[in-house]
């Protein structure tokens, strides 16, 4: 077991890659064997992720060097700098990988019935496993170029999956916009990597963090990196592609795309807090992130209020919830230099932002899955044409209610726990943040109630006589996420102590990150 945990960072990335190509071979023979292989590999990866997360919380940062004589030997004998590819797992990476493991397992189980009527399902599962591998690679990597490569792997497979149903025209348009934005973001990240390599002769994040000075070229690289990752997460004013891409994808893929945008947010945090941690001008960058986060929250929810397409409506809400996370962690970044304020409310604001990432990763894919269930049963995404579906689709209705109460921040569900943390700590920073947050929360509840009323309530419509409940595998996929919501609702204190405080401390403590690789405390 100890050997398994030692090798787990690379196994978590390599097993979905191998399974993707095995699926491509086995899928030509039998489809039951292919489905079993997909689910089995994702279950095994989830088990490894939980074991690794527990080990990281107890024992500290875990480092894995590819191709050395032992996993912890980051600097080869006779050298002075780390030269190999290094994977580094700290509290923040472990946290994001838990989310990705759970949501990708739920999405794969959901897809078993959702795309059962499409042709080319083998390619769907191959691309899905490649996307899973790309996401894990982004979260575990320890150098900048690997970040670019895994970002592009996840983007290319995500774009191909959005445009998977080629018989509709709007899926192609959404996929095209996603690919164009991802290609531009990837090229900007590569440009910034080139600038940093030219100055400091190293690609490793820990080595760069040790030697970086804040010259003009470094500021250009920081701006390029942050704009590229903000473009991928849908921050205002770069959010115009986001609803188009998320509303037309198959519902399981939309759930996974939400977590991919979270992984890009993780990359932005890694750049701001760890790579530039010693030298960053934290009030300026923090305030820019907070202002843009407020704008994102507000624009997202006001555009969502009058939407008629149910998936587009939910994707605008995804934009506004992402704004909450930027505000929470932005407050932490703005007070990073001031250790008294950091201890008072900065750490709580960062914990609130990270908690909101966890909650959003549980309820947002659940809501997208219910939207996909509505599309699966009625054949349309238009809310004005639906009505009275609560009589036929009882499980979907209950899960939708759980998701709605969660996203609006109604106590005692998990959305409330994270929002109250953000509100209380952001109020001490500046009151306008809390006021905007509460207004956005009220508008969220209003719009979701309107959507619930128009889709589920009302008298039964004659054209939906033949509608039955969705197939079992879709309900199991949604139930996994709902079980996660209930678990977080019942044990918020333990979640904060065991998962979130280590993650927030890992972000602030860039010295531990650097010394794990170079062996020298900066």
């Amino acid at each position, binding site marked *: 077991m100890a050997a398994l945990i030692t090798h787990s960072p690379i196994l978590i990335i390599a097993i979905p890659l191998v399974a993707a190509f095995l699926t491509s071979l086995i899928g030509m023979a039998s489809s039951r064997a292919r489905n079993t292989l997909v689910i089995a590999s994702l279950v095994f990866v989830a088990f490894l992720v939980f074991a690794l997360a527990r080990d990281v919380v107890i024992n500290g940062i875990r480092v894995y060097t590819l191709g050395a004589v032992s996993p912890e030997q980051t600097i080869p004998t006779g050298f002075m700098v780390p030269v190999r590819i290094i994977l580094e797992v700290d509290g923040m990476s472990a946290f994001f990988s838990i989310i990705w493991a759970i949501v990708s397992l739920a999405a794969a189980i959901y897809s078993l019935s959702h795309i059962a009527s499409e042709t080319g399902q083998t390619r769907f599962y191959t691309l899905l496993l490649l996307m899973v591998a790309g996401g894990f690679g982004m979260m575990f990597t320890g150098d900048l170029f690997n970040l670019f490569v895994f970002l592009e792997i996840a983007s290319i497979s995500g774009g191909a999956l959005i445009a998977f149903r080629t018989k509709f*025209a709007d899926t192609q348009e959404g996929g095209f916009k996603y690919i*164009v934005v*991802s*290609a531009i973001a990837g*090229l900007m990240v*590569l*440009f910034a990597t080139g600038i940093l390599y030219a100055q400091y002769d190293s690609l490793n994040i820990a080595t760069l963090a040790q030697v970086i000075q804040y010259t003009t070229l470094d500021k250009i690289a920081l701006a390029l990196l942050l704009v590229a990752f903000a473009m991928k997460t849908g921050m205002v004013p770069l959010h115009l592609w986001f609803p188009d891409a998320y509303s037309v994808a198959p519902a399981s893929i939309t759930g996974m795309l939400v977590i991919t945008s979270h992984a890009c947010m993780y990359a932005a945090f890694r750049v701001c807090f760890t790579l530039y941690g010693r030298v960053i001008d934290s009030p300026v960058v923090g305030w820019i992130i907070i202002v843009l986060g407020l704008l994102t929250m507000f624009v997202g929810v006001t555009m969502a209020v009058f939407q008629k397409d149910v998936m*587009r409506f939910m994707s605008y809400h995804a934009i506004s919830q992402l704004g909450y996370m930027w505000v929470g962690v932005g407050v932490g970044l703005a007070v990073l230099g001031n250790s008294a304020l950091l201890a008072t409310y900065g750490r709580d604001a960062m914990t609130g932002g990270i908690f909101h990432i966890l909650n959003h990763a549980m309820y947002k894919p659940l809501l997208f899955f219910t939207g996909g269930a509505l599309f699966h049963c009625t054949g349309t995404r238009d809310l004005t044409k639906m009505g009275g579906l609560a009589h036929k689709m009882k499980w979907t209705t209950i899960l939708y209610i759980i998701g709605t109460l969660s996203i609006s921040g109604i106590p005692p569900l998990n959305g409330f726990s994270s929002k109250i943390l953000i509100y209380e700590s952001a109020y001490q920073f500046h009151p306008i943040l809390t006021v905007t947050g509460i207004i956005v929360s009220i508008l969220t509840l209003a719009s979701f109630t309107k959507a619930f009323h128009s889709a589920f309530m009302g008298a039964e419509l004659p054209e939906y006589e033949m509608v039955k409940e969705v197939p079992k595998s879709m309900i199991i996929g949604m139930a996994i996420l709902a079980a996660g919501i209930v678990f977080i609702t019942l044990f918020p204190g333990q979640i904060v102590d065991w998962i979130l405080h280590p993650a927030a401390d890992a972000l602030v403590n860039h010295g531990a990150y650097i010394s794990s690789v170079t062996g020298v405390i900066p």
Partner: protein
Amino acid sequence: MEYIPLNFPFLAAALLAGVSFYIIIFKRNLIKLIMGIAMMSSGVNLFLVALGYRAGGNVPIYTDVPEGPMVLPVPQALTLTSIVINVAVLALMLTIVIHIYRHTGSLDSEKSRRLKG
């Protein structure tokens, strides 16, 4: 060649990136947009190869190279990986444009829009 400044490749890379940003933002034909992305990837690859150059350096290979400094090989590896990734992205974009053309009959990004609001 003293009349070409030493940072001429970097100016060329910046020019390529700037022109391609203009194309991606302002041109309406989808094929021109794809060409803009191809041009931007060429600019970034040129930048990566140019930053590894050391004056008077030799090729960084094993076989029969004369003594002396070598140019940096790591940016060349980064450029190769970037070229491979951009080939995949361009192939995917061209396939999606073919599907868009089949469904809507037009390559103009204004006329083939279906998703608004």
